[in-house]
């Protein structure tokens, strides 16, 4: 995991610094006025004050007034203290009367905040129960956290054309305007599922099923991040929720259910399939993949990985991210194109998946070359005594450059 410091690294640091300083400019120039303007500008993708669905909206309309009240009370206290400091400083006045207080005033000043809090309490109570309502759920997705990625599986649901279970990871795809229930759990430690624009967080606790609900108003990508500390790569356990219009969602489902298409004989991708069969299927499942003799390949992650599962790579290129959404499968330009598109054109752009010119070759190849160098994981045999030699994360497979070339070509066919 040690990063070799070379010239380009240093250069990128300098670069980073200039960019950060560049960002300071609006601040240095800015005044209070910019604060108001800025609230409309592009905030961080995980801004908790920009709800994009009814659940998050309910939280937002509850918390904004609370913030306002808290702010006002804070100002009153600050003003009272400031006034006292100025007014009652020692100007040689006589020692004041030794009064021990004023019970009536005390009681009043106790009751007022109590009343304010009682009002807040009533609204809180209502919202808590409102957010926990599950009877009108329209769609169920099982969400499973694991160090350090999320797995999503869609149980069969004829209403949405899901004739057999779909399993995916990295990006959670949901139809807009649909009340989706997430049944969360974890395979190892506690994680927490959080897409701020859609709802508050809910822990994924191993051995328990916790329920969370999300619903998106508009098509788009909503960023999120694991928020319960889950070990080494906690910082790299991200998620993205993709909302598609109902029609686009149906197309997405149809694509996920599409049977496996083996690459044509003689192509680089076909050679990549062989490499994949030899190297990757020990853990990674691709549904429908068969060996040369026609037997279906069932991966055995439980024999190699401590938590017993790894991402299922069927239709990998229909997703935009890999390695627990830490890296994009798209180049920065193509990614921007998808993220910044308006809600009308978003669906088509997302469903186009990852094509060769848009593929983020750097990170994908780097990952195949030496995954633990790109993301801290327990893949060094010396660290695996506690797990009986089983990995926690993807090890360095020691692939040759030509193998990587072939694998990339093969992975590109997994649309």
């Amino acid at each position, binding site marked *: 995991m040690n990063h070799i410091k070379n010239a380009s690294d240093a250069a990128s640091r300098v670069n980073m610094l200039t960019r950060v300083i560049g960002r300071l400019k609006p601040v240095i120039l800015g005044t209070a006025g910019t604060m108001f303007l800025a609230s409309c500008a592009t905030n961080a993708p995980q801004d908790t004050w920009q709800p994009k669905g009814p659940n998050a909206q309910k939280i937002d309309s509850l918390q904004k007034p609370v913030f306002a009240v808290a702010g006002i009370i804070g100002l009153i206290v600050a003003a009272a203290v400031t006034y006292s400091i100025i007014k009652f400083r020692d100007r040689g006045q006589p020692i004041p009367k030794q009064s021990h207080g004023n019970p009536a005033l005390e009681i009043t000043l106790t009751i007022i905040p109590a009343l304010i809090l009682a009002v807040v309490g009533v609204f809180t109570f209502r919202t808590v129960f409102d957010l926990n309502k*599950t*009877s009108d*759920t329209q769609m*169920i997705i*099982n969400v*499973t956290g694991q160090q350090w990625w999320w*797995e999503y*599986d869609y*149980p*069969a649901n004829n209403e949405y054309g899901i004739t057999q*279970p*779909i*399993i995916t990871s990295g990006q959670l795809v949901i139809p807009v305007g649909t009340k989706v*229930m997430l*049944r969360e*759990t974890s*395979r190892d430690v506690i994680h927490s599922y959080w897409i701020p624009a859609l709802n508050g967080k809910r822990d994924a606790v*191993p*051995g*328990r*099923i916790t*329920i969370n609900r999300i619903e998106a108003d508009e098509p788009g990508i909503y960023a999120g991040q694991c928020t319960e500390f889950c070990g080494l790569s906690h910082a790299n356990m991200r998620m993205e929720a993709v909302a598609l219009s109902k029609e686009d969602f149906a197309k997405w489902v149809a694509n996920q259910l599409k049977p496996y298409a083996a690459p044509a004989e003689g192509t680089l991708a076909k050679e990549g399939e062989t490499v994949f069969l030899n190297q990757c299927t020990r853990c990674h*499942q691709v549904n429908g993949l068969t060996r040369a003799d026609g037997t*279906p390949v*069932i991966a*055995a*992650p*439980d024999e190699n990985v401590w*938590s*017993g*599962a790894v991402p299922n790579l069927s239709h990998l290129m229909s997703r935009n991210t890999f390695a627990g959404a830490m890296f994009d499968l798209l180049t920065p330009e193509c990614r921007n194109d998808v993220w910044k598109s308006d809600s009308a054109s978003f669906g088509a752009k997302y469903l186009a998946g990852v094509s060769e010119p848009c593929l983020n070759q750097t990170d994908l190849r780097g990952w195949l070359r030496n995954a633990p160098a790109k993301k801290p994981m327990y893949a060094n045999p010396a660290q695996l005594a506690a797990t009986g030699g089983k990995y926690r994360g993807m090890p360095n497979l020691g692939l040759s450059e030509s193998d990587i070339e072939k694998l990339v070509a093969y992975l590109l066919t997994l649309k």
Partner: protein
Amino acid sequence: MFTPGSKYLIAITGLSAVSFALYMLLVHPSAIGAVALIGLLAATSLLTGITLFTRDGHASEGQTSAAALDTPTPSMWPLVGAAGFALLLVGTITTPIVFIFGIVAMLAALVEWTVQAWSERSSADVAYNAQIRQRILNPIEYPILAAVGIAVIIFSFSRVMLAINKDAGAIIFIAAAAAISLVGVLISVRPQLKKSIVGTIAVVAALGLVGAGIAGMGVGMREELVVAAQEDHYAHKECGAEKSEHFDKGVSETISATSGADATIELIDGKLTAHAQGIEGLQDSITVRRSNPINIIFRNKDAGEFRLSAYLGKTKVADGVSEDLITCTQLLPQGAEQWLTFTIAKPSVSGEPYTLSIPGLAGQSVEVVVP
């Protein structure tokens, strides 16, 4: 002020401190090594401290102690030390336990003897010397004697209990307690009782107990415990329709904290239904996650005793031979509920689905889908 002894110890303390520092800084430290060196450091610095404090014979330097001129008080510790040595020798050719006893006896003798000798030399006042001895040794003697006494009683007693029949055990137990109490009452109501009689009772009782303990050890554990240890019969699940002797003994019928359940499976009027947590209505199949412990609650609402059995695919026992993987609950009477936990590592393949069913009740099953 520094005697040769304390100089030696100061040097060895310094040396161990330096070696510890070097070891931690230069050598890639192993935990055991570090502990060993810390232990050395602690031991040597303790000894150094003691020698510096006691001024290591400084007082008697070049002089003969007054007390040393007197005849020393009689001591039993040379005898104990010799006995310990004998035990040690016997232990080398018999069992390690005897060897350890020998070492312990020798150590005890060494410490007591040293302190006694030292205290007797400290002044001419015998009472004062005894006081010194007590101050050093009482904090060690009291707890160790008490602990040894308790250990002997507990060990002997439990061996006897293990050897005899279960019901007789309870009777012996209460009899022993009653005897202790009765002796207590007896002694307390007869204040004129001679000390020697009380002492004799105590010695006889102690010898009896130790003897019984040794006898109990010789007899070994009672039959049923030996069998239980060999067969491990409570862990062995027998998932047939009929009642199993051990596995179905002592049915537990209620469960606490249901929040971890993936699904509740109920048997009502001969029908098996599933209710996955968070999903409205009843289902005939449940979707569960791969490689994740799945907790299912089985609730029998039917008259009669039933168990839920889970078929979890096959496992290879030898080349070409495979065996069904099955787990199950106990036979549950009407109204009872129980957890069933299992993990499925491989996704479902068509043709051989994972199922939950009731042995002896055909046609009712819930499919378990693993994507």
